[in-house]
């Protein structure tokens, strides 16, 4: 497989009260075309910063170093962050080339616009279709994300939908322009277990159907393992370990990865309660 995206020595720092706080300290990583890559880590690991950097969504005030290379066929140039002037075509466009799903669909969707229009807008902007065709495409997309009754769903507002349904709409908008990469940043963390499983299944199906490359950001190693081909473990802004999912799960090399696996409380884990014999 070829690298769709090659990240080299990526360094990101945020400025807070005049002090620079490092969020990523030189991360190098290749994202392969068509793979499902999970990036896991705890709070402060820099996993979300990595996702935002790839999508070009970092705030203006962020101090960025290193390169994110896009050896995409269209233009072989890779862009560097160091000079702010970059050739326009070389940069992948959020929405057209990259789809991004945020953790909280209530804040990523416009509360005063019908969901159909929000999806149609993405289609119209990036695929240059007419409104009528964009709406037709939006309806197809709502069908693809399995929203019940897509015809009337086009005209509903976000607040009329449940959390899981909103996230389905957000996913439909993210994939509307048929991007090459889908980034899901903790996209299921605000949902309950049952809805989370449904959304993960949906993402898995859509990625397979469209041949998209998936970057799945999560704090949950078990969830990541259920979806990803490869797992990258981040800690304090550094890439600790990267490997095939089965290798990470069954033969982790780094002690931190081992600690994460140990801390997971699955349905087969040894109960803490029994260990102490504290029954009433």
């Amino acid at each position, binding site marked *: 497989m070829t690298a769709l995206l090659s990240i080299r020595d990526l360094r990101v720092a945020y400025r807070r009260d005049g002090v620079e706080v490092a969020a990523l300290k030189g991360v190098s990583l290749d994202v392969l075309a068509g793979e499902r890559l999970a990036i896991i880590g705890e709070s402060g690991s820099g996993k979300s910063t990595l996702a935002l950097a790839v999508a070009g969504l970092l705030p203006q005030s962020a101090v960025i170093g290193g390169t994110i290379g896009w050896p995409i066929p269209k233009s072989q140039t890779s862009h560097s962050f160091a000079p702010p002037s970059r050739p326009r075509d070389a940069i992948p466009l959020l929405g057209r080339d990259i789809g991004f799903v945020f953790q909280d669909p209530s804040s990523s969707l416009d509360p005063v616009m019908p969901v159909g229009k929000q999806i149609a807008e993405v289609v119209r902007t990036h695929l240059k279709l007419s409104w009528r065709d964009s709406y037709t495409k939006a309806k197809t997309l709502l069908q693809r994300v399995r929203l019940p009754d897509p015809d009337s769903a086009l005209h509903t507002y976000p607040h009329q939908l449940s959390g899981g349904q909103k996230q389905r709409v957000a996913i439909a908008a993210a994939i509307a322009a048929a991007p090459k990469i889908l980034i899901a940043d903790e996209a299921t963390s605000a949902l309950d277990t*049952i809805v989370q499983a449904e959304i993960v299944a949906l993402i898995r199906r859509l990625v397979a159907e469209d041949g998209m490359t998936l970057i799945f950001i999560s704090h949950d190693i*078990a969830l990541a*393992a259920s979806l990803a081909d490869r797992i990258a473990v981040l800690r304090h802004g550094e890439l600790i370990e990267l490997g095939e999912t089965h290798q990470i799960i069954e033969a982790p090399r780094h002690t931190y990865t081992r600690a994460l696996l140990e801390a997971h409380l*699955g349905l087969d884990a040894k109960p803490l309660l029994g260990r102490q014999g504290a029954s009433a």
Partner: protein
Amino acid sequence: MTVLAASSLTKRYRRGDKPFAAVDNVSFEIGPAETLALAGPSGSGKSTIARLVLRLIEPDAGRVDFEGADFLALSGAALRARRARIQMVFQDPLAAFNPRATVARVLDDPLRIHGIATRAERPRRIAALLERVGLDAGLAARAIHEISGGQRQRVAIARAIATRPSLIVLDEAVSALDVSVRGQILELLLDLQRQERIAYLFISHDLGVIRAVAHRVVILDAGRITESGDARSVIANPQSAIGKALVAATPRLTRSRP
């Protein structure tokens, strides 16, 4: 003997024009030093039950007996005094504290309100509480927003045990924590339970966590109890549709070696 007995608790809200029951005829009991878990999808009524039991909201019907007395009959100063015995820990430890508070103030409040220690004794008590939950006593002077999420949740637990309660309601108390911190907090809770014989009403959407710490579990769906029983047996062999769905949806690590 039971610490808390809820019987036929019902709470109705209006959604648009239609009334609906957020909690519908729910009954359960918790014994001393026992952990009862409430599990269910979002909107199943878990948090509403927590708020009813704590009398943060009032039920439309039903009865709550706490330590053998009618808890719903209390009001005013009598209710406030009784609150010393039933405490709560919230999901988001940052939202659960006044953004202007320091660690010392957060722990000082319950000691002062319930007259547990004189003004002169309180700093020593606060230091002891911090040490009890595994924190450095020097943390007292820090602002709540300066300490880490795990430390904050330990402070929340210290505040909850300050008045020596017999029951603590834990509403998704470990859900927002990093997994490495979560294990330590659960160990702390179990340790407190063994030593102080505190009962927990443990609300969580995570069956893995429930299985690790709870004695019994109640599974809720749309405000009703669908099944209940020994936590490990229910999770190993769920009978209700929602119980089966919850178990099936829980992510698992398929590892060949233990």
